[in-house]
């Protein structure tokens, strides 16, 4: 025990020792921003949706530099909005594992230590991998906040990260013991997929009888984010109402949030990853491996058949589960004549039988000339295994819901023009090459003062509702954002 105490004391003394290197850093630094944003929508896809949405966000941070070898940082998120996206009961959420955004959350809290060629970061932090512009299939350690699909943020994770520098190489090792899921759009709100109010359900083999398991399987063909392999744990059946003949019966559907099964918190159930970055003349690349959980929930529906109503009514509970995934990835960036070239590829091996193993990749070219930047990227995902139900012929299917499966066969683009030192305009978007669905985002950015920035934007979705981007075509909006940085 004494030996351990001596070792820890020795390490603290080494970390606090000031080397003889010029540094103008202040030991304490504070900063942050206040942000106000208003969005106006043209349509209301759900009755509960509003046409206007106002949000406030305060993100203060503090940093302490104890020595050249030891420093720490803390930052918080405080939110307010008009759209019931917030969980008002959570004022200082450490984990951010809830379905809704907490009013207050600890965003980052970490300690940085420099030990010879090793940089160690311990605590809640953001870990970003990948080199392409928009779609990074190798970037799986830090989950996303998809409350708004078109403007998503990242959710830092509690982790230990070591970077080892050897000549032109950097080796990264990450261990994240506690899983944080990606925050998905809320049920019955505009960014969640449209759910049917009724459906014609095939009757069972015993005549005019529908059982819950059969109903669940049917729903999973209608809504591809539901797991078709899941069999209801609430068995039940109903007889078709008098007068309904044939092989189908119409039932009313109601959807509700079910339970969330998060992975157990134990040392052997953590997530980990390794990455080798190499710098070579005029290029850089990396190879990575991640063994963790798919941060996007698998939905396991359970159905409850409500009796005694004029028409059969079924309550579908959407339960969320998270299964392990292993990702092998690689990326690179280089130049090709007057063009920049970037690429990224990852193979996803899923533990979840309802999800397909797949190869996802992005490859892009960019060109800068004067005040212009143009960038184009092609992204695709190729399944390497079959999913039992929805892949079968005749399955009705709908649009893939989240970017993990939705960004398929798409061209992403970005054109940026710097108008003056304080103004720029950006046009970016996506075009689905299979279904012709599109996303167009226009953003005007102006520094009003050195601390105040104004952003005016517009987002437009188009295409068939069965396509990934087309399903959001009622969600086009214009936005005004003011950010004061201090």
């Amino acid at each position: 025990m004494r030996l351990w105490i001596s070792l820890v004391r020795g390490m603290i003394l080494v970390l606090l020792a000031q080397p003889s290197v010029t540094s103008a850093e202040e030991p304490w630094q504070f900063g942050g921003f206040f942000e106000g944003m208003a969005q106006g929508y043209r349509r209301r896809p759900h009755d509960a949706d509003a046409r206007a949405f106002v949000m406030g966000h305060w993100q203060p941070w503090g940093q302490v530099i104890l020595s050249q070898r030891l420093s720490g940082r803390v930052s918080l998120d405080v939110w307010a909005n008009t759209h019931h996206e917030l969980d008002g009961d959570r004022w200082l959420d450490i984990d951010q594992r809830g379905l809704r955004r907490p009013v207050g959350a600890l965003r980052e809290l970490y300690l940085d230590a420099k030990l010879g060629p090793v940089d160690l970061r311990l605590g809640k932090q953001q870990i970003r991998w990948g080199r392409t512009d928009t779609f990074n299939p190798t970037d799986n350690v830090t989950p996303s906040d998809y409350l708004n699909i078109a403007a998503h943020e990242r959710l830092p994770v509690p982790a230990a990260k070591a970077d080892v520098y050897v000549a032109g190489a950097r080796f990264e090792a990450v261990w994240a013991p506690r899983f944080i899921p990606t925050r998905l759009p809320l049920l019955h709100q505009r960014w969640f997929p449209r759910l049917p109010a009724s459906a014609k359900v095939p009757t069972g083999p015993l005549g005019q009888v529908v059982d819950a398991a059969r109903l669940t399987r049917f729903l999973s063909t209608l809504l591809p984010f539901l797991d078709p392999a899941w069999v209801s744990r609430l068995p039940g059946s109903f007889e078709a109402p008098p007068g309904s003949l044939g092989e189908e019966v119409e039932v009313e559907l109601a959807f509700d949030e079910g339970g969330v099964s998060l992975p157990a918190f134990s040392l052997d159930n953590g997530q980990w990853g390794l990455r080798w970055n190499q710098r070579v003349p005029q290029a850089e690349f990396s190879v990575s491996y991640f063994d963790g959980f798919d941060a996007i929930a698998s939905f396991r529906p359970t159905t409850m058949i409500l009796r005694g109503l004029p028409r059969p009514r079924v309550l579908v509970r959407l339960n969320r589960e998270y299964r392990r995934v292993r990702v092998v990835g690689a990326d690179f960036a280089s130049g090709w004549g007057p063009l920049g070239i970037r690429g990224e590829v990852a193979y996803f091996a899923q533990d979840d039988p309802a999800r397909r193993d797949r190869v996802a990749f992005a490859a892009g070219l960019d060109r800068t000339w004067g005040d212009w930047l143009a960038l184009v990227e092609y992204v695709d995902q190729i399944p390497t295994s079959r999913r039992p139900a929805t892949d079968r012929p005749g399955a009705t299917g709908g649009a893939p819901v989240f970017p993990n499966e939705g960004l398929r066969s798409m061209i992403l683009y970005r054109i940026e023009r710097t108008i003056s030192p304080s103004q720029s305009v950006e046009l970016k978007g996506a075009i689905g090459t299979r279904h012709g669905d599109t996303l167009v985002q226009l953003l005007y950015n102006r520094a009003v003062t050195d601390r105040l920035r104004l952003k005016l934007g517009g987002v437009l979705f188009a295409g068939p509702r069965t396509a990934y981007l087309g399903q959001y075509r009622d969600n086009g909006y214009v936005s005004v954002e003011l950010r004061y940085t201090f």
Partner: protein
Amino acid sequence: MRRCLAYILITLALSLALGRPSLVRVDAMDRALEIMREVDRKQRTESRSYDGALEVIDNRGTVRHKRWQFWGEGQRGESKALVRFTAPPEVRGVGLLTLNHPSRAAEQWLYTPAIQRDRRIAPQEKSARFMGTDFTNEDMEDRSLEDYDYALLAQEDLEGRAAYKIKAVYKDRKDTQYSHLLIWVRQDIMATTRIALYRDDKRSKVLRWDDWQEVQGVWTAHFVEMKDMTRGSTTRIRISNVKYNIPFADDWFSLRNLRKGS
């Protein structure tokens, strides 16, 4: 004397016939290179650092303020430089690392702390503005003297002081946005005080140094101005806290240090 004259005439005739530079031009080139070497020698230090207070003025007269810290080490053409913004708050921690190489293009990385990512600046991005200033990424490089062809054009008065006027053309035309530069070297302190940067033989920008003070025996400009003639904008830098020959840790000019972000 006759033999000497004949030799000169034959050499001139051969030079014209073969399209080679004349003796007069060769002399002008040699003299210009000699001047530039002398400027370099006078400014030579092992390492350097300063604090910069920037004013970026757009064509409407709107002024934006920024601050950065600069650290540099090594000699022209093979130097390393790290620039880190300290203000305004929204760009605090943004850094640019430049590694200049004598025989190949410089490498540059930009680190953005908000997304905790560093990004290699590709060669084709050299003409892009550096963080909203009138400097481009290429302007932040420090190229070797030998990478240019020089010609001494004239000796003229510049703001009341005698100056050499030198034309410089970067040899690797693919690796620059500029067709040529006109350089003015003040003769009394042998320091570059003005550079006009030409694109497609049109004057595109003018870089000017002023407020010269001697720091640790080195004549040092405490005011730098880059004027963009095309955009009508100007960036001015007030320089303070200049230090020369300071020690740096081995990894100060590294991606590792760039990623520290503050």
